[in-house]
């Protein structure tokens, strides 16, 4: 089935998310949509899937104009979508989720899930999914949930499958498996639209690449194009993919985490017996697929978790059992992974956000009364220093772009003399220009002698910033390796192999694979894992 988009425009009020986008997806091809976070890829796909109504433009399926007033129309036309945030009802079973919207029923609308179960088993067998139709979705790991989403589309006979940033929640190995599934689907005649901002993945799997920047198509490329070329198309100027940073000069070790275990209310171990330390003037990057305990690690340090065992010592002081306030006062700067959820109060002004954890200190307040003049002056200074693009520091923080919001958070957290700096996903959803700026500030803090912990699910960022790299898997520390380690090694560790086992495995396979496949793309070692 051939799909064509002609002049699609979608605006939200004054904001134009998609600007006259033209795109042709040929039958049976894997067509990648490459672009930065916020370039407008997801919006475009939501238009295609009938979730948003386009402001202008038309969609053609097999050269016939179609009009989608909702996802039902898109599905009827043979379009299926796997959303970045899964569209599964957590309290339903797999079968109920798959059936929803296309249920088989008996007399009086009575549900009959047998048919659905049979189809799920059939598709599972074909692709080796191993999905139990009667499992509750909320109890499944994310990788399996993603497969449920794919089954959902296939049960509806999707001829075009849209995958929106599907690898964000997967390990490199799981990503390889997904790519194999994509190739299998393609062999069966399904067209795939693959949305990603990860160059390596796009190069590995695509037949055609279309690059989108600021809501516009800026060109298309061949998968064999050079990485730097794709990157500069995506960003709009030549970018250095590597950060100039001097080697670390580690000082004494002032931050130690010993046998740290974090549990949730149900008693599950989210972080399991983790031990490591960070020296002054050193960046420890924590890698891992999302949801493997990184969030819990940083939150445990900050004192946000109730059920914490073990010890966290900063400068000789135990932090476990302290309140957030006390931890911050002990000299910890903290950039949370989700700035809009945890880092900023969206409707507060930039000035207010810049004192969100300093408001009780003089000179910002005295005797419980805030000093607005001082707060405003502070804001002017910080906005200038961190190059926050805004009309006024009295504007609400949620009027800022992602990158500028992140600058506000960083400006606030670096405003105090720090003994430890922790940043989670410091550049998620941030434009490339801001990324460079943010990275430089983080390295500058390291060079000033502060121990720094960076948590990131982006391997590129981990490799760029980390002087040493720790890898978490299922709440356990797989090991700490030097900053210049290979992607393969980190990938195996992110998939659950301890560092030495991963090294041993790489040494064993090096003869067979070295040099013949692009880094990180090949199905490295499936057969040998058991």
């Amino acid at each position, binding site marked *: 089935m051939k799909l064509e988009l002609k002049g699609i425009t979608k605006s939200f009020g004054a904001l134009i998310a998609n600007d006259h986008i033209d795109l042709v997806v040929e039958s049976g091809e894997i067509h990648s949509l490459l672009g930065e976070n916020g370039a407008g890829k997801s919006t475009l796909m939501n238009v295609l899937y009938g979730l948003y109504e386009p402001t202008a433009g038309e969609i053609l399926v097999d050269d016939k104009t179609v009009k989608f007033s909702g996802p039902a129309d898109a599905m009827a036309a043979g379009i299926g979508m796997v959303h970045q945030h899964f569209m599964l009802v957590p309290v339903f079973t797999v079968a109920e989720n798959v059936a929803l919207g296309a249920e088989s029923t008996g007399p009086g609308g009575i549900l009959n899930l047998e048919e659905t179960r049979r189809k799920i088993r059939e598709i599972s067998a074909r692709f080796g999914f191993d999905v139990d139709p009667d499992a509750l979705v909320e109890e499944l790991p994310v990788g399996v949930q993603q497969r449920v989403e794919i089954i959902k589309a296939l049960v509806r006979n999707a001829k075009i499958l849209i995958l929106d940033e599907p690898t964000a929640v997967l390990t490199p190995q799981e990503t390889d498996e997904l790519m194999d599934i994509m190739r299998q689907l393609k062999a069966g005649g399904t067209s795939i639209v693959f949305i990603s901002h990860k160059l390596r993945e796009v190069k590995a799997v695509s037949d055609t690449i279309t690059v989108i920047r600021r809501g516009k198509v800026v060109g298309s490329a061949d998968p064999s194009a050079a990485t730097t070329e794709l990157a500069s198309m995506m960003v709009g100027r030549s970018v250095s993919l590597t950060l100039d940073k001097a080697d670390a000069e580690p000082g004494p070790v002032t931050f130690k985490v010993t046998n740290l275990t974090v549990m949730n209310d149900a008693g599950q171990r989210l972080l399991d017996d983790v031990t490591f330390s960070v020296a002054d003037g050193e960046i420890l990057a924590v890698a891992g697929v999302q949801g493997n305990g990184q969030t819990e690690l940083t939150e445990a340090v900050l004192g*946000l978790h109730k059920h914490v065992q073990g010890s966290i010592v900063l400068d000789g002081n135990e932090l476990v059992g302290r309140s957030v*306030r006390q931890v911050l006062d002990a000299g910890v700067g903290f950039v949370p992974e989700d700035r809009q959820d945890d*880092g900023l*109060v969206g409707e507060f002004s930039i000035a207010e956000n810049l004192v969100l954890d300093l408001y*009780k200190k003089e000179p910002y307040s005295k005797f*419980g009364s805030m000093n607005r003049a001082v707060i405003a002056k502070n804001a002017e200074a910080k906005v200038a220093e961190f190059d926050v693009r805004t*009309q006024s520091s009295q504007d609400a923080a*949620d009027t800022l*772009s992602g990158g500028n919001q992140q600058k506000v958070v960083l400006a606030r957290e670096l405003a105090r003399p720090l003994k430890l700096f922790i940043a989670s996903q410091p550049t998620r959803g941030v434009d490339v220009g801001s990324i460079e700026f943010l990275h430089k500030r983080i390295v500058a803090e390291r060079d000033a002698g502060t121990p720094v912990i960076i948590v990131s699910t982006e391997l590129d960022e981990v490799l760029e910033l980390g002087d040493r790299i720790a890898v978490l898997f299922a709440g356990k520390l797989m090991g700490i390796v030097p900053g210049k380690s290979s992607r393969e090694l980190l990938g195996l560790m992110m998939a659950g192999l301890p560092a030495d086992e991963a090294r041993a495995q790489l040494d064993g396979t090096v003869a067979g694979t070295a040099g013949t496949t692009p880094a990180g793309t090949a199905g490295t070692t499936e057969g040998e894992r058991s």
Partner: protein
Amino acid sequence: MSETQKVKDPTPPVKESQGSQVVREIMSGNAVISVLAVVVALVIGGILIAVTDPRVSTASGYFFADPGATFSAIWSSVSEAYGALWRGATYDPTARTWQGQLGIFETLTFATPLILSGLAVTLAFRAGLFNIGAQGQIILGAAFAGAVGFGMHLPPVIHLLAVILAGAIGGAIWGGIAGFLKAKTGAHEVIVTIMLNYIAISLVLYLLKNQLKDPTSTNPISPQMDANAMFPLLLGPNFRVHAGLIVAILAVIGVGWLLNRSTLGFEYRAIGANPKAARTAGMLVSRGYITVMLISGALAGLAGVAQIAGTEKSLDSEIAGSIGFDAITVALLGRSKPWGTFFAALLFGAFKAGGTSMAVNADVSIDIVAVVQSLIVLFIAAPPLIRSIFRIKAARREGASA
């Protein structure tokens, strides 16, 4: 176009916690909408008054013979009712006594507990909590104030201060329960406060049969307050307006400072707008929930004091009337701002004072006031509806920047 145009993530609008969205909706509407909402509500009220007036239905019987008669009947029906409402709430030259002419002071009297309880709802609202429980907090405040007011005998001034303090404590306890449960167990404050309203009524009915009963009466009613325990009347014995009004105005100023100037208010607003970010910034969200509900409950408790020590003199189960529920509409009409709440309370106080006069002089049931009040709030909460009625362009803000 300005040069520094803001580039947002072109992702769909971020989903935010519902509380913050509500706060923003309530606070961001403009004054025109508020005025128009009042107008539309009054018009609908007028229609109700007209269609239920027998004179109008009689005249409409010969509508085609004499349409003018129908319109004049409608006019006299509605104008009499609203005229009586207006005069009753402000100045009525036709009243028999000169005290009766000055309805404005009745307005102030009715407004006093509304200001205090409206502030209670406003304050909690800004911290992201829906305090539906002002009713129960008023009852508890009045019960505590009453227990001190007629159960103890203290010198002047001291007795009144003790009564005020007791009332605040009573309300604070009742509000604090909801805050505590919200903070410690996550129990939804709307449900808890609704339930506490009814528990408060049962509790007071029980107390009125036992500990707080007036031994000389067979009804569930308490003894009268000591003279020392009463708010002094501001304008002498001819008017009911009492010193509770001063307490209420001080409370408006106090809550204004608390919300806009103090570090505590900064915390409350941060918690209300984004509790997770507040927590990450080192604020104690659960302590915030508890303290804000304590203060909110105390304010509602003061409204109970204004009732028992201002106008009612003794406790019964009807002490709170409908004040606790009116407080919610007052806070919404006042857009959750302290002075907005003050003026909204004045308006609703005027409705109450005028509604009584309307019932007597124009034979229009005071229930119409509840209808008009609720319509006002509905219209204010839905600006697009008012805009479509009056065909006002919605794109005000965008137009301004172009």
